[in-house]
């Protein structure tokens, strides 16, 4: 695909680490609204919200990747609404939105096999800015439709798969 990828990043925090996603994926940043839970969903699927007239799921990346298994939700909790490559709207719960950065996405350090909370397959790579390190998420991979459908069911097996991949 010859799509020119935006080099602008939106950085945010999950736990202590700083993460980034391409700004072109971001549609909106909103505070935590009333979320309607989905009965059979895993713990990291908080439920669904109304995003610009569409029914969009809210996913807590901290729970998804075992960064914080028991987060507290207040009206100051932030949701980043992203649009995936296949045009699905999804809300991501993050700890705080930090900044905007320019990054050359073709010059990233490969993600190490160890040392990050999120398995390398979900990452585009690492970006170093001065003494800061930003982990660039592969949002389309994380929110892959089939994987989400499989993993988001509430069952012992999926919980097992989850902890294994984290």
């Amino acid at each position, binding site marked *: 695909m010859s799509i020119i990828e935006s080099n602008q990043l939106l950085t945010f925090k999950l736990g202590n680490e700083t993460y980034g996603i391409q700004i072109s994926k971001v549609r909106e940043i909103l505070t935590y609204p*009333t979320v309607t839970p989905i*009965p059979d969903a895993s713990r990291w699927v908080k439920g*669904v919200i*109304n995003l610009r007239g569409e*029914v969009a*799921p809210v996913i807590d990346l901290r729970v998804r990747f075992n960064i914080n298994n028991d987060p507290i939700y207040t009206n100051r909790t932030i949701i980043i609404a992203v649009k995936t490559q296949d045009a699905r709207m999804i809300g991501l719960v993050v700890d705080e939105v930090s900044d905007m950065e320019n990054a050359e996405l073709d010059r990233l350090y490969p993600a190490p096999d160890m040392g990050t909370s999120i398995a390398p397959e979900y990452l585009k790579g690492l970006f170093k800015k001065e003494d800061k390190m930003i982990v660039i998420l592969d949002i389309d991979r994380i929110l892959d439709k089939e994987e989400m459908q499989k993993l*988001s069911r509430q069952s012992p097996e999926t919980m097992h798969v989850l902890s294994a991949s984290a």
Partner: protein
Amino acid sequence: MAVFDINKYRQMFLEEAEDIFETIDTILLEAEESGDMDNETVNSLFRSVHTLKGNSASVELAMFAALAHELEFFMDRLRNGELAFEESMAELLIEGIDTLKQILEMELSGELEESFFHTTKMSLLQKIESFSEDTQEVAALILLEEEKDDFGLLMPIDDDKGFGPISGEFSDKAEEMPESMEEYFGLFDDEAPQRELPPFEDVFGLFDDLEEITMQEAKEEMFGFFDETEEPLSPVATVSADVEESDDDHFGFFMEIEPQQKVKVSLPEKRSEPKSKEALPEAAVDESKVAKKFKADTTSNSIRVDLSKIDGLMNNIGELVIAHSMLSQYIYTMEDQKTKSDLGERLELIDRHIRELQESVMSVRMVPMETVFSKFPKVIRDTAKKLDKKIDFRSFGESVEIDKAMIEGLTDPLMHIVRNGLDHGIESPERRRKAGKPETGTLMMSAEQANGQMIIKIQDDGGGINLAKVTAKALENGVIDEHQAYSMSEEEKAMLIFAPGLSTADAVTDISGRGVGMDVVMSNIKKLGGIVKVDTEEGYGSTFTIALPLTLAILDGLNIRVGAEQFILPLSAIIESIKPEEEMIKQIGDTQSEVLMLRNEFIPVVRLHTIFNVEYEHQKLSEGLLIVVRSAAQKIALFVDEFMNQQQFVIKPLDRNFRNARGIGGATVRGDGTIGLIIDTMNILDKNY
């Protein structure tokens, strides 16, 4: 059988074709840009062209169908992996599709000449050939085409000469016309009718341009002696005038002014001969009527609107409803009584208008099933003819209304089912006689509304599905393994016909048998939120049952409270609700399964709290409410804590951005902007959901 108005069907086909072309174009343009095409894309391309081919053949656009067939053949090889996709193929395919559009336009207007068609087809085939590794096959094809082309090249010479004598034998020519026309439409491959073609085409083409006045003038000019018939123009006279007039032009085209006068003089004489007078109108009436109708249809008082625009409208109304209820909620918090009641009154007015608006938009979307059914008699007649079978087609429930959004997705699968039923289901008259059945097979199609669903049945009294053969084929294609084949029930085996690439037909015909179709049926119906079931009994026929939601847009629902959560229950599913007495609840076996004894019925109780993972407010059934609803196979009683209000909800899909959830059929945006979940009583007990 009554005379078919082919142009009515052509109109429908044209509308469909427009859509399909659009889809194809998008796919191809994407493929060209990315330089890649995955299997799924090739498959959907193939299906699109396949549909075009099939539908065009059924409205007697033979040349278009023939060209579509070539493209389909090419795509089939791409699909099979015989050819690997190359970047430049997208360009070729785009060119091919454009040619197809051109041919369609020309064939519809009657301007398409055989010679032009063959040169076009040839050049396309040559380009296709350049991609082929197995060039021999295509080379042979081209050779074959070249032979035909010779005829095409010869034709104009023949015609030039031919017109002389024809002008002398006008009435004979007219008698010939109907025959040649039929041949032309039906079997374009034959060289025979070519000579008669151009006259017909020209007559047809020129005829459209004639205006009422010209016709009257012509009548006056030529039929002075018809004065008695005067005011109400007898149709026969008018029509014959048309044809004379157009023939005038026709001759004029070739012979300049002089013979035109000659013809005019000679015509009245011929008119006076009763024989030719009868022969000509007979030929002309049908065709001229058709031509007029076709012309009228294009200027008819309706517009074709993209459904997404209506969806957009619907969404806007949905937002309006939400905004309205927000405002209503706000009024309750107001203190000033005067303002409160004034505002309330005006708000009620707005509410009424919104409802009316909603209803009109909904009515735009609803069309009678007849729109769907009317496409079939023609297809069935043609297919039956081709197959040498006798079919009696019956349809019921034409007036049942269906969401237009469904029709587009429904026609294709129905067509596939019908074609399959005719081809493989209903046997030949001899075999039927031997089996002790009437020679004429029956194909029934019915539509009804039941349980808030649209139920469409297609039933044939043919040979049924050979389950052993289907299973064997599925094993061979690796759709299932031996263990699965062994443990499968009859119904499951019958459902195998919906697996991709599975066709038990030994020969590939242009009716069915390429193994596309039944899988398309399944995926199309699923896309509409419906299900397909097939019941078959060998020797006695098959019944396909399709269950669809009535509309994709709006639902009358009841708000219910389950613990701390609220859900929406479709009103259409509710049978009754009761506050159960303790003695009405019986337990079967272990204490887990409870049943409600209601009059003479035992209805299983489903505790929504358990299914939806909500904390119980009351454990005892008698402290809550039971709502008896329709489920897939039986009635069930849902245990809830409280009824709330009844309201209309704009349905939004849950799987658009996420996925479906067990027992949940969709979602909606509530008055306060939050999402409400709509319970799907049909599959609430389905654990595999």
